[in-house]
């Protein structure tokens, strides 16, 4: 019994865990190895607060760049020396750009705010005033051209006659132009079609012409042969006498030519004033021509646009009342009602639009 009990107790003892002791031993040995327990140490010694700003690792080149050169240090030390910008113009441009950006930003704000046409767009307060320039008009022609007094609904007799004459002249010009044009190719030609027999005869005639040509060629070859023979007979040996003669003659000619040259030169020198006069005359003519051209061009631009595209600008016919249409009453006025066309033509006339072809309206 006693033995049994002892056995039981021993077993119970064996069941008690020794983990605590094991842990302690392990910890103690680890601390001993690392040099002290961490729990007892203060937090400052364990962690360091990184107060320096985050600096990336510098490369060698950057380090080199940072180096202040001697001339720079000299300049830096002198407070009276100011840095000169490379180009003033460039800088100004940049400034303008920034202003534009600022404006754009303010515009964006506006988009959400007031509706279009319901705020003062030219209000300078609170906005950066851009020193923009108004765009120049493309032509000298005014936007709204006032018609001559003859186009009044109740015109004065004389001025009406003038305007009417102009309108009639325009119409007549058109008619004359049409009359003077070459006749259009007729769609049908009167007469009979060529029969096959006739065509054969025509071809025969053509063949005859070829024969004549051949004959000519033969004649030409004969001529060439004759010429060659002549050349051969002319080529003879030259004697020394003849040679000397030729040399002497050459020299003589040379001397004569020189004398002539000198004579001519002196003549030319004598005629310098004349030449100068001629040049002046030519210059004057040139100037006049230039002036005339300039004036003509300006005149042309006043009456119409330059050629801007495929088609030429055609002015609208002027609107004048006929003599029998003048009643003097506003109620009975037979007014023209094509102001839309007038505006369109005006745009074309001022060179804003390119004249286009007539298009047919789909109705």
């Amino acid at each position: 019994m006693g033995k049994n009990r002892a056995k039981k107790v021993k077993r119970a003892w064996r069941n008690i865990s020794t983990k605590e002791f094991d842990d302690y031993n392990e910890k103690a040995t680890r601390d001993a190895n690392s040099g002290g327990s961490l729990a007892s140490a203060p937090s400052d010694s364990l962690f360091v607060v990184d107060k320096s700003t985050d600096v990336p690792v510098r490369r060698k080149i950057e380090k080199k760049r940072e180096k202040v050169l001697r001339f720079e240090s000299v300049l830096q030390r002198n407070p009276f020396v100011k840095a000169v910008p490379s180009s003033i113009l460039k800088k100004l441009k940049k400034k303008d750009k920034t202003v534009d950006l600022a404006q754009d930003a303010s515009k964006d704000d506006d988009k959400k705010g007031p509706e279009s046409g319901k705020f003062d767009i030219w209000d300078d307060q609170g906005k950066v005033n851009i020193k923009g320039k108004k765009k120049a008009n493309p032509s000298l022609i005014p936007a709204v051209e006032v018609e001559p007094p003859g186009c009044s609904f109740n015109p004065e007799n004389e001025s009406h006659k003038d305007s009417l004459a102009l309108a009639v002249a325009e119409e007549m010009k058109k008619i004359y132009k049409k009359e003077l044009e070459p006749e259009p190719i007729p769609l049908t030609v009167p007469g009979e079609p060529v029969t096959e027999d006739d065509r054969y005869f025509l071809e025969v005639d053509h063949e005859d012409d070829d024969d004549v040509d051949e004959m000519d060629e033969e004649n030409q070859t004969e001529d060439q042969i004759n010429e060659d023979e002549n050349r051969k007979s002319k080529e003879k040996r030259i004697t020394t006498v003849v040679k000397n003669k030729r040399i002497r003659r050459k020299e003589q000619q040379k001397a004569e030519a020189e004398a002539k040259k000198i004579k001519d030169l002196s003549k030319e020198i004598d005629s310098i004033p004349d030449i100068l006069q001629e040049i002046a005359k030519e210059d004057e003519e040139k100037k006049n021509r230039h002036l005339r051209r300039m004036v003509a061009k300006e005149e042309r631009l006043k009456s119409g646009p330059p050629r801007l595209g495929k088609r030429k600008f055609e002015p609208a016919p002027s609107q004048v009342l006929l003599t029998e249409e003048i009643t003097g009453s506003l109620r009975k006025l037979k007014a023209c009602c094509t102001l839309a066309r007038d505006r369109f033509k005006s745009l074309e006339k001022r060179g804003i639009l390119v004249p286009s072809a007539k298009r047919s309206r789909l109705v």
Partner: protein
Amino acid sequence: MPKHYRPAGKKKEGNAAKYVTRSQAVKGLQVTLPLFRKMCIWKGIFPRDPKKKIKGNHQTYYHTKDISFLHHDPLVDIHRDIRAQDKKIKKAYSKKNKPRAVRLEEHKPTYNLDRLIIERYPRFIDALGDLDDCLTMVHLFAALPTLQNEKVEVKHIHSCRRLSHEWQAYISRTHKLRKTFISVKGIYYQADVDGQKITWIAPHSIQQVLTEDVDFNVMLTFLEYYETLLAFVNFKLYHSINVKYPPMLDPRLEALAADLYALSRYIASRSKEQDNHELASQVDESQLTLAQLQHQLAPSEPGALMHLIEEAETVDEADEETKECRSLFKDTKFFLGREVPREPLLFVITAFGGTISWEGDGAPFEESDPSITHQIVDRPTQNHMFLSRAYIQPQWVFDSVNARIILPTEDYVVGRVPPPHLSPFVDNEAEGYIPDYAQKIKQLQDAARIMPVPEVGNEHQDNTQNIVLDGVADRIEANKAAEMKKKMSAGQKQFHDELKMEVEGVSPATGTIKNVKVTTDPDESDKEQISEHPDMSEMTMSRRKRGLYESIRINKERKKAKVDVIESRKRNIKESQK
């Protein structure tokens, strides 16, 4: 692209580098041709005429810088977005996904042209100077019928009507209208706003015919821009006279198509309220300054004080011409017949200070009103004639306005052919030829000026004005050498001279002006002499000036020849009549 890099085959300088053709530009911008045309119109970019046309004579050329200017505009991007959205919507519809299409439609990007307006017209005065085309276009579209196949919608026409009426109401309220001319094409108006002469045409109130050579897409693009511009201009102008914009109109009058009248009533009521406030403050201020001045000035100079007060009064008043325009129809009351064009007359008569009514509902007063002085009619028979008023044709109004005097009404009585309607835009003296009726009007004007018209309120001021005007009249008379007139005006002159002496005692400034004017005459005669003997001065002129001079001379000769022809014709006619 960096500056130094140039692709192969691209030119560095000259016309080949400066100009591109339209198709090149469209390709470079990566936009469609319709959008390119729209952008050009909005941004104010126009085709150029280079000296050398590299790609041929049949092409349209644009400046490279203009194209790059277009390239940087945000509107191009917005339009690309719109196009992309349109494609999505179309796709959704064709997939029968209607809710998606509707949602996309709602979130379609929008654009406005406000930025372009400030870009093209940095100052308000620039916009005013370029308003001619804008006003004409808006007035034209206000009279157009809606066109289904041209995409001219009711919306456009209504907004144009509103804008044009707003503009007219402002002009008539501030009395800025100067000239009118009824031509076959339409009615020309000229107003003077802030020193800018603005001319526009309003079509006659008849059905407009649309010819086939008008591209309405282009016109509508212009219109879109002009509508925005005119709205901003109207806003600025309305605020300058202390009226709220956009105006709220009486719906009853609007329904009766009397928008212009409704507008003018609105403006009158608004500015009256404002005026009352301002007047009160102004009176206080002026009294204050007066007291201060009295302290400063010595008591022996009452004249100087008077002068100062006068100045203070005239500062807030408008210039002389406006004053003249305002008081032209001051004592007249008009009634319009049913057959006369109501809107132009309403505009013109109120612009010159008259009161007006018409037949119909909502009119300010009835036809039977005894205070009406003029009834404007245009048909031969009347139902009931009032003896107290003059029955005249509408041309009378326009002629009186151009002449700035109230013309005698005998010539304009109903049933008679009125005298010719002359154009006020022609300078008769420069042209050399003066029509008979213009001469008659001139005589009437001179007579009206010489006639002393003393007013109760500010008599003193008026007299000084008369003297200045008289100076001008004197010069004209001297030129004409009308002896009869001189005899008549001798007495008047004496009277005015006396008055002038008086005024000079008060304000010597006007006297000096007079002196200067007198001395200008010999100068002018000298000029004429020079023009007759040009040989000496021509030698010393520069080339350009000589050309200019030549052209002026030729022009003068032409004009003279023309006048001679007309006069000889007239003489012949007279002789043949005898």
